[in-house]
């Protein structure tokens, strides 16, 4: 792989594909050829349980459809606990993520755990509690379009991400939108996602220069928002649920697949990855 032009000053650290097209990052991989059709063709994600850890999901949004369970992380003097909730979405962001998952994997089961919107939740412990709960519930796919920059949570998040990996709950996590270090998307046990700038709503790429492993559509995306409406928005947050939806489709088709197999399949089926035949010669 070659990089034809040096990145602009200040743009070297970016968790998204900026100023480059898919043709700039071709990857030749070893292994069996895996096509998108083999990976998720014909699958609608039926029966796969997907959890959105975010600001909640609006009930009865036409572009989200049925939400099979809504929970909230509550933090007060008694500590942190998770309860079922009738509240919807405090922002619109979680509804947007749920809508992208629904569009990609229309028959999956959708669940929501709200980690934002109670009190100002800048500390990370509520996020950690919500993610831990989702892992304990053994959701097949956990969409986390959030991260924390707080170093005191990194060890706990890493342990939790490993637990999810071995427990066959795949955490699909957004890279930060600005070039700062945050977690858990940074860990190899999760599927991390940034944005590309192409208009194709189904195009995704593998990044030859991780830590961000996948680039998916994250620019000017039409998404459901509060009040049954839609808006257009931009950011890695919206690239992530596309990959979560694809993961749900693959897992619906191959329910025994482990998280490491799933990541390999998504890698081999990425648009910029082609398989070399040399090993067979």
């Amino acid at each position, binding site marked *: 792989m070659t990089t034809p032009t040096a990145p602009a000053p*200040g*743009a070297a650290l970016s968790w*998204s594909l*900026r100023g480059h097209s898919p043709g700039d990052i071709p990857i030749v991989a070893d292994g069996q050829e895996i096509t998108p059709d083999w990976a998720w063709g014909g699958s609608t994600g039926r029966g796969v349980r997907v959890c959105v850890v975010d*600001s909640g999901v609006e009930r009865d949004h036409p572009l989200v459809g049925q939400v099979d369970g809504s929970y909230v992380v509550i933090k007060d003097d008694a500590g942190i606990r998770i309860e079922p909730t009738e509240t919807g979405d*405090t*922002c*619109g*962001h979680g509804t947007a993520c749920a809508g992208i998952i629904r569009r990609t994997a229309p028959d999956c089961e959708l669940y929501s755990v709200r980690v*934002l*919107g*109670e*009190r*100002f*939740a*800048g500390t990370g412990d509520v996020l950690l509690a919500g993610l831990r709960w989702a892992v304990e519930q053994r959701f097949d796919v956990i969409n986390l379009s*959030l*991260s924390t*920059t*707080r170093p005191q949570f990194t060890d706990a998040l890493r342990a939790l991400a490993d637990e999810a990996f071995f427990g066959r709950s795949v955490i699909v996590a957004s890279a*930060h*939108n*600005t070039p700062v270090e*945050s977690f858990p998307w940074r860990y190899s046990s999760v599927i991390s996602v940034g*944005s590309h*700038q192409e208009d194709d709503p189904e195009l995704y790429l593998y990044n030859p220069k991780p830590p961000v492993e996948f680039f998916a559509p*994250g*620019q*000017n995306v039409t998404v459901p*928002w*509060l*009040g*049954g*409406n*839609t*808006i*257009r*928005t*931009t*950011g890695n*947050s919206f690239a992530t649920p596309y990959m979560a939806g694809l993961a749900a489709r693959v897992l619906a088709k191959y329910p025994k697949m482990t998280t490491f197999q799933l990541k390999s399949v998504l890698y081999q089926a990425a648009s910029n990855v082609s398989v070399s035949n040399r090993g067979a010669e």
Partner: protein
Amino acid sequence: MTETTSHPTEVDPVARELLQSVVDTARAIFGAEASSIFLLDEKADELVFQAVSGQGEEFLVGTRFPAGRGIAGWVASTGEPMVVDDLSQNGSFARDLAESTKYVPDSLMAAPLLHSSGVLLGVLEVLDPSPQARSSLSELDLLSLFARQAATALRAVLDRRALRGTEVPAAALVLDGLDPADRAAGLRALDAVRDLLLAP
């Protein structure tokens, strides 16, 4: 959303001028209808309009709303920037915002103002940027870069205030023991020392 005239996130004239210049500049960069800065009042769990340029300039400063809610709340809680378009079609959003700001934007950009320690100072919002400045990754980048610069400047001002705040009580104990003439002289001396310490 409640309105109040008190300013628990009290800012001195230098901070006020800085915040105003940030929102004026943000508005100019993005060709926007309005720009505002909210500072976090952590104790009250609220975001407070601290500076406004454009629409709402006359009446929004001092207005507060819950810190975890809405787009500004999401940005404040997650430390991530956000750009959204087509909001005017969005009933509930428009109603919420219209009630509080009397202005319904079609497009909104928001970025966190972060201390280098990761602690949130507030949120910078840009309302109705020019059409070419909408919903692209490069605009998100530009907004974040500008917010970082604004946060750095704001931090310098706030740190200066904190420095002043810690010195005065200690000095006050000493000054209290002096007669009025000596106290006046002492205060002048303290001012001179402070100016010296804070000189660039």
